[in-house]
């Protein structure tokens, strides 16, 4: 972008990029399911920042990506909650907090 000074929106977009990478890293290295969910949520936040930050950079407020992110947050919390429900059940029947490795 042409701006010599880093704009706020661009800054947060860059933070979003880093969060995506960080989240992916955590998602791969961890086996504990709660940790993988944390990583997933971090990655999700990163993508939301990317969505709004990039769209608004140099163009001002854009309500469309903001609305998309609102939708995305609800979807993310639904996914997380579903994962936790299944995780607890899994933990109850198996006593494990990770998935078996063999597949």
């Amino acid at each position, binding site marked *: 972008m042409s701006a010599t000074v880093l704009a706020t929106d661009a800054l947060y977009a860059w933070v979003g990029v880093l969060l*995506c990478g960080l989240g992916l890293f955590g*998602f791969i290295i961890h086996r504990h*399911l709660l940790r*993988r969910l944390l990583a*997933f949520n971090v*990655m*999700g936040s990163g*993508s939301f920042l*990317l*969505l709004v930050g*990039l*769209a608004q*950079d140099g163009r001002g407020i854009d309500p*469309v*990506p903001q609305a*998309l992110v609102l*939708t*995305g947050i609800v*979807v993310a919390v*639904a*996914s997380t909650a*579903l*994962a936790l429900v*299944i*995780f607890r*059940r*899994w933990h109850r*029947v*198996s006593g494990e907090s990770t*998935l*078996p490795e063999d*597949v």
Partner: protein
Amino acid sequence: MSLLPALVMLPLSAALASTLLPLRWRGPLGVALAVLLAGVACGLLRTVVGDGPQAHALGGWAPPLGIALVADGLAAGMVVLTATVALPCALHAALGLRGEAVEDGFWPLFWFMWAALNGIWLSADLFNLYVGLELLGLAAVGLVALKGSAGALAAAMRYLLAALLGSLAYLIGVALLYAAWGSLALADLAGFMAEAGVAQSGSLTTLVALGLMSAGLLLKTALFPLHGWLPPAHGGALPPVSALLSALVIKASLYILMRLWIMAGPALTPLALGWLLGALGAAAVFWGGWMALRQARLKHLVAYSTVAQIGYLFLFFPLFGVANMDAARLAWDGTLLMLAAHALAKAGMFLAAGNLVLAVGSPHIADLTGISRFRPLSLMSFGLAGVSLMGLPPSAGFTAKWLLLQSALASGQWVWIMVLVGGGLLSAAYVFRVFRHAFVEGPARDRFASPPLALELSALALGSASIALGLVAQAPLEWLRIGSPLATGVP
């Protein structure tokens, strides 16, 4: 009044209704509504065949501000295919799950899944596709988890993680594309990209976005080597659930992938990438076939067969990408027919396998000894579906394979011929492995549980459909080309 929103809203309303209704009403309601929805689906197809592609701007707001539902031949075809597969599955579930604890969750999730599928086939908006994918993914995961056993829960969890990661990759791609082009409507994007061409500076952003989205969608489609989550999920679920997952759910992400590639056009989807997908598909065919051969449990064999069969569908990407118009058309026809053939055959096979497992009371192939005498109908359905999966005539699988062979020959990509022929032999090996056990006449038990006839008939209907489609493929293939890039002459 347009049929397009009804195709999503009917199943959605059914989902809401079956959350509330008493258990005993849900099954009959499910079957009745499935019949109705199949009728609506056929109505849509008729409209599309008669009047060309249909569009409906939801909320009265035209894209890019609003979201449009669009039905071209392909979308209408998928809607009809969904109904064709889901109707026997609904029948199977209504009778097979009656009185079981899982029935409470099954029906709402079944309907949510159907709504999501129709939503995806008809969607023409990148973000709407994301929401549709999530709805589909969570409903599918829920269906897998329903059994509540340790195996089912682990499989559901693994599936959920894959689905979540896949949709995130897709979402990041959406963010990039929106930033780069300023619209979420597929039609807009296709126009912009065609206008801009390769030389445009933004092509790199688009490429990264498409790469991420493709990777996420591949994970959801379970293309080798990202297939790890599929066999436990599809192999361990209830029979109608396995059937729906293998037949339709994984096709949804493939469908989006195909739409994206066609949207981006040849400039942004270099043939090398197509070859990569084709090569992965080839590997899937052989690896999945080999693993299917080695499974001890019947439904896991069928699940690995899905891993293998998905591979054929990915031959689309290298074959469609060539400049040869004939080859591209043959690839389009062949892939879509293969998709339909696999959907019908695999759903039939899972239902039949479920009946067989129910009859012998054991999930193991080795325990099928003597079953041919007692459950010939289920075995027959399994065989009919198997014929299509093996790609032997006369079946839709064969006709599709023939078209793909012709496409490979026309484009000069001879490698895929080996995949098509070798893969067929490998699938023959695992299908006949089941029969080898079933035909054994030995000192086996002569008491088998007998499932209701309707369970066997629903499997038979799907198996027969996978055969019959091969004989009447001409007209459906013409319908599928309506509104496709082939119709306009730009592959």
